[in-house]
């Protein structure tokens, strides 16, 4: 995080966080491996193909998925287009004002993109209509509406849930190869549910799901994305500090354990969405 953008945190509070961590405690009373309360709501935007509103503690984000027609990129004529665009709205915190995204938000979009792309949650080759000419373009737009740390997990959770519940118009190709969009609605084909878990390092302590206060004093963070089979599919280390080798293994265990919890909840919500229920 850029220093100037950090919330003003009195040095007393910083000392307090570090002192508590020395005793294995966190400012909000959580255990080191404990996530904040996660709530997922689906179908919040009727005009989107798929949507989700996720709150993780006081962090709140909304994701809308739009599926449109597009021309494939010249270097991947047999792949559909997948674009992730995250935005921290000025309503989200006193530190954010309108303007082009800063490097932190661009990193956020790209880490969320990587988790989805690399897990092969969406088989992009299945969304090709005419190779080299016409493919589906899946736009994942995420708006952060209240900021309290760990945007990577909240945004990727919203994006994955929105994708898993997205619906689109089907199509057919006539014998002469003419493209025709049909009126019947089918689910967007998806395979697995990648979950990105972030662990912050403060001093010698590793904390799962850091809040904004914790992020403002962290030395480093490590995000790992896991899939349903317990494999890792993406990762990102951030901030100037470093992790020891043992710490990296520790984080990988946290990512698997917390990832499993989150995935269970997501599955429940996605199943519920199929039956018309909109939240967990």
């Amino acid at each position, binding site marked *: 995080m850029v220093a100037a953008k950090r919330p003003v945190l009195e040095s007393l509070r910083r000392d307090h966080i570090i002192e508590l961590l020395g005793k294995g405690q966190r400012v909000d009373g959580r255990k080191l491996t404990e996530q904040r309360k996660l709530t997922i709501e689906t179908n919040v935007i009727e005009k989107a193909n798929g949507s989700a509103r996720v709150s993780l503690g006081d962090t709140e984000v909304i994701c809308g998925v739009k599926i449109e027609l597009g021309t494939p990129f010249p270097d991947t004529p047999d792949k559909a287009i997948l674009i992730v*665009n995250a935005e921290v709205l000025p*309503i989200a915190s006193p530190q954010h004002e*309108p303007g082009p995204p800063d490097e932190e938000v661009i990193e956020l979009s790209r880490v969320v993109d990587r988790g989805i792309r690399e897990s092969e949650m969406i088989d992009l080759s299945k969304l090709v209509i005419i190779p080299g000419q016409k493919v589906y373009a899946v*736009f994942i*737009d995420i708006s952060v509406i*209240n900021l309290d740390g760990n945007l990577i997990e909240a945004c990727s959770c919203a994006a994955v849930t929105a994708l898993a519940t997205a619906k689109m118009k089907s199509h057919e190709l006539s014998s002469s190869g003419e493209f025709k969009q049909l009126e019947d609605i089918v689910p967007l084909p998806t395979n697995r549910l990648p979950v990105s878990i972030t662990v912050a390092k403060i001093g010698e302590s590793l904390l799962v799901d850091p809040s904004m206060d914790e992020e403002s004093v962290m030395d480093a963070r490590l995000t790992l994305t896991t899939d349903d089979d317990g494999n890792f599919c993406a990762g990102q280390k951030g901030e100037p500090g470093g992790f020891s080798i043992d710490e990296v293994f520790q984080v990988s265990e946290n990512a698997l354990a917390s990832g499993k919890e989150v995935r269970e909840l997501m599955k429940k919500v996605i199943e519920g969405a199929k039956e018309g229920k909109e939240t967990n």
Partner: protein
Amino acid sequence: MTNLIDSAGLRNDGRKFNELRPIKLEVGILKNADGSAYIEMGKNKIIAAVYGPKEVHPRHLVRPDRAIVKCRYHMASFSTDTRKNPAPSRRETEISKIIRQSLEPALILEDYPRTAIHIWVEVLQSDGGSRCAGVTAASLALADAGINMRDIVASCAAGKVDGKVVLDLDNIEDMEGETDMPVALMPNIGEVTLFQMDGIVSPAEFKEAFELALSGCQDLYKLQKQALFTKYFGTDKPQVQEGE
């Protein structure tokens, strides 16, 4: 063109000519903001947030005798039927200005010299009349932030659809109807703070549409008061009597 008003005089969504869409108002929905409000008006889903009074950036904008107001109306990329390009549009820039100037008359800016008040209007889903819904929500957010105000601002549009003057146009009526006339009103002072119009109307229709829009603003004002009462006194308290 589709028929927007049927033989019984009902509109495409079943409303009468003088009926608002279903409205939901909520005050104080964001933790970080100094004031916030959420409005659903038909399919419109809009969050308004207020930050301030706070320091002014850049400094040369400082006014020694009053606060300055910054406002942005912004649509999420997923708010429209076809994805909206995330780059700011000229339409959004104009609406930001219109919303700011519809709220400024209600604010006692002299109480906050050398500061800035930020009003952010985020359209999560748009369905015609989003600027009016934005003004309605933003004025609640300002009240929620505790900014000194002369009055609340309520806003809604009237217009002409299939030759008939109607209240609170939805997206289809806005696109295919003849005239759209967004209006904002400070109900107690009786001052109109937003007025726009596009499309042709006769002088009689002009008067009819304008008065209809004002009556819609009065209805919204009652809902705004209710929403503030609910936030600050709980739902148990008796709601404000009419004419108070």
